[in-house]
């Protein structure tokens, strides 16, 4: 099937779904991140209904980060319509363009500009059409203005509904976006840049919204999957016959994959228990979290994917240094544990597969399903309803494949929702990190050499933002003992933890205040600004002079994904448990021109609290191929009791491009806490979760 045909079919279907009207094709070149949908990529971006209703389409998904409202704001700004005129359709492979996965803080810098350009082009069309309608020449149309979705002239009004009904414009809409389409500069924004309430909240506070796990289809069954008792265990034998005798139960085995579906979740659990009782497994030896960091080092593969950023000669720099310090930092595996575990509903009809699931990659999940079931991608539709949190943990489509396999076998739609225990054990983890740093101070007590190596977790934010003549930053892959992949801001959290904690050690060796020491090594004005903003609001200089027994203060800063962040915090150390308590955090963040300050504040507050989890308590423990703390009772995530006094400073830089903001604000809380614990106890902390010396 050709791309053209497929595209035509999809557009026709879209018209049926969205109502009659005209399509505006946004054919702006796709960035690297936006490619990947191959033949299925659609270009349709914006739809104007004959009632004037505006629908914006994006392959991005909403998981609570506020993308839906942000993209609607971007469209409304350029269309000059009130925000409530814009409806969003997101994450539906039959309707929406492939905007790439929702990851890497990419929606703000890459997708919002595409939406803005399409909307600006639509506004230009409206102006031109209104000009013709009012008998104004084209160049005079430039003096017309769109206000509240319409052009007013001589007592007459011409709005988007008129544009949608104007047949002679259909051809123009289908042309590629004019290359020169310009968007409204930030200084002139009327809607962007001002706090806007999320558009999807009413459905969420009433429980009306259907998350992926809430989707119900006629005749739907509930599925359960047989999981191995330990990592790496293989299935020797299993007997499905007892389960198959149960009323309404379908049981399926496909190689090592065994699953069942039943009319209720309870019946599915019972069927699975019957299957599980007959399963014979062969276990294999597995590493334990007790020797995790030794394991990562032993299994290092320095020749694989070597990544090093080098300035000057770190060997020379270290050799010439007056003082040399060395330390290693440890960050264990953690789990995303979103409130909604993985879920999918799959339905086969006439050889076509429709799946509703919570994934940040609808296009790649569609591709994966097509390959798995040997059907053309255009026979597969993946819909992603706003889902219950991902944090980088739902880039895959496991539940979608499982549900589709069961649905095919059962001849009914099947829902699969992972249990919490499954989500802990079988979802991928944030990689553990072993980070080794050696640095040198010169005679002037400035950092002259810096050598950092991250084993296993990644290279994000590994390079130092400080002015140092001789640096080397290396990422060294290892053979990970657990299934690992992305987590909010990737390895930037681990790398910032190590760098910022070690920077405090260097400051101490240099006899300098941590703030002063950092500022003296920074050229990045944006980073200096957030550091100064946080320190001033916190009262860093004054509070360094006052000591309160059992408490300490610390700070940290960092940059990633074109945004900058700094935090100061105060902790109280419980000498009995060793667990520090976070008393106060002041965090300053800057991500260019702010699109929605209200949502940004939520993201920053959420990042601080989420980041405090691994900093203070979260750690996946495993032994003999099993997790030993795969429950919320044992794996302690942040709760209300942990909320400190929080102050957020958002610096708005209308002169800079807007950067994504859902990730970077998480990177400084752990090192700020570690540095505060040192301040309180005089003992350096080099591993997460952070523990103060007891007694």
């Amino acid at each position, binding site marked *: 099937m050709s791309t053209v045909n497929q595209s035509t079919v999809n557009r026709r279907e879209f018209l049926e779904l969205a109502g009659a009207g005209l399509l505006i094709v946004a054919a702006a070149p796709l960035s690297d991140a936006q490619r990947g949908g191959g033949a299925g990529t659609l270009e349709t971006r914006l739809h104007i209904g004959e009632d004037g209703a505006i629908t914006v389409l994006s392959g991005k998904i909403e998981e609570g980060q506020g993308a839906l409202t942000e993209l609607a704001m971007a469209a409304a700004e350029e269309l000059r319509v009130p925000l409530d005129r814009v409806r969003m359709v997101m994450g539906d492979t039959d309707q929406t363009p492939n905007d790439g996965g929702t990851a890497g803080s990419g929606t703000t810098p890459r997708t919002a500009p595409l939406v803005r350009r399409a909307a600006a082009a639509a506004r230009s069309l409206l102006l031109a059409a209104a000009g013709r309608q009012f008998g104004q020449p084209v160049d005079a149309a430039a003096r017309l203005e769109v206000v509240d979705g319409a052009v007013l002239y001589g007592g007459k009004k011409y709005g988007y509904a008129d544009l949608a009904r104007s047949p002679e414009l259909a051809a123009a809409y289908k042309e590629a976006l004019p290359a020169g389409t310009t968007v409204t500069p930030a200084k002139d924004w009327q809607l962007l840049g001002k706090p806007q309430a999320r558009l999807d909240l009413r459905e969420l506070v009433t429980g009306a919204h259907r998350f992926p796990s809430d989707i119900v289809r006629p005749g739907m069954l509930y599925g359960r999957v047989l999981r191995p008792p330990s990592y790496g265990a293989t299935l020797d034998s299993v007997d499905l016959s007892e389960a198959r005798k149960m009323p309404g139960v379908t049981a399926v085995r496909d190689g090592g994959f065994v699953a069942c579906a039943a009319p209720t979740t309870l019946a599915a659990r019972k069927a699975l228990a019957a299957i599980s009782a007959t399963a014979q497994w062969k276990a294999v030896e597995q590493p334990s979290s007790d020797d995790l960091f030794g394991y990562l080092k032993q299994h290092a593969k320095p020749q694989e994917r070597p990544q090093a950023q080098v300035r000057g000669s770190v060997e020379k720099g270290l050799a010439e240094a007056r003082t040399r310090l060395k330390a290693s930092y440890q960050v264990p595996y953690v789990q995303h544990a979103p409130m909604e575990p993985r879920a999918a509903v799959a339905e086969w009809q006439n050889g076509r597969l429709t799946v509703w699931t919570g994934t940040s990659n609808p296009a790649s999940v569609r591709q994966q399903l097509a390959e798995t079931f040997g059907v053309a991608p255009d026979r597969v539709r993946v819909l992603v309803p706003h889902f219950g949190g991902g944090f980088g943990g739902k880039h895959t489509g496991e539940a979608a494949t499982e549900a589709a396999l069961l649905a095919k076998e059962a001849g009914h739609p099947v829902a699969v929702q992972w249990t*919490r225990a499954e989500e802990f054990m079988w979802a991928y983890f944030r990689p553990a990190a072993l980070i080794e740093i050696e640095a040198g101070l010169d005679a002037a007590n400035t950092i002259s050499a810096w050598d950092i190596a991250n084993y296993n977790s990644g290279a994000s934010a590994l390079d130092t933002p400080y002015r140092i003549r001789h640096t080397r930053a290396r990422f060294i892959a290892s053979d990970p003992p657990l299934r690992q992949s992305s987590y909010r801001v990737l390895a930037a959290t681990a790398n910032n933890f190590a760098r910022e904690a070690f920077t405090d050690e260097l400051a101490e060796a240099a006899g300098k205040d941590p703030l002063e020491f950092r500022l003296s090594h920074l050229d990045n004005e944006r980073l200096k600004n957030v550091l100064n903003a946080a320190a001033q609001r916190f009262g860093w200089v004054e509070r360094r002079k006052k000591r309160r027994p059992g408490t300490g203060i610390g700070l940290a800063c960092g940059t990633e994904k074109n945004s900058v962040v700094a935090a100061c915090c105060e902790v109280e150390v419980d000498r009995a448990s060793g667990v520090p308590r976070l008393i106060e955090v002041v965090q300053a963040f800057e991500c260019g021109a702010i699109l929605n300050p209200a949502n940004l504040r939520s993201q920053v507050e959420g990042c601080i609290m989420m980041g405090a989890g691994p900093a203070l308590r979260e750690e996946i423990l495993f032994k003999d191929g099993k997790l030993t703390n795969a429950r919320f009772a044992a794996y302690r995530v942040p709760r209300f009791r942990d909320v400190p006094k929080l102050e957020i400073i958002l610096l708005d830089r209308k002169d800079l491009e807007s950067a994504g903001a859902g990730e970077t604000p998480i990177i400084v809380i752990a090192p700020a806490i570690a540095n505060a614990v040192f301040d309180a106890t005089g003992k350096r902390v080099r591993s997460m979760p952070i523990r103060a010396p007891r007694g």
Partner: protein
Amino acid sequence: MATIRLSVNGKARIVDTEPQRPLLEVLREDLGLTGTKYGCGEGQCGSCTVLLDGKPAFSCVTAVRAAEGCQIVTIEGLAADGTLHPVQQAFLDEGAVQCGYCTPGMVLKTVALLDNHPQPTDAQIVDGLNGNLCRCSDYARIMAAVRRAAAATGKKG
């Protein structure tokens, strides 16, 4: 199997089911009330919170039989004739929602909290809600919503 008579959001509902089945699954699968969420299945996260005779309960660990004779309120039963309950309105006004999966449980737990403590201190809010998890970690905003709801209902009273 047994015939279980329930009162859900003021309506009588009769279900034929295993009496030990979790109330959560009956609400979601038999009664179509999907606003109540599965989060952990063992009463550690609060996503499945409902009110039983005004008291918060983890519906994932409550056998449906045990809810017989109780007035069950789920998130779908709070708004009256399209008007949001003051607690829902406060969550909306405060923007105390990110992914929203924990929100029904948080809202119902807050309704119960304000029933006991119409003007709660921060310590009472923390104690009252600590059993409910929000992985978006929007706790500070949720606390602000609880304070806002208390202020709104206090004014009315």
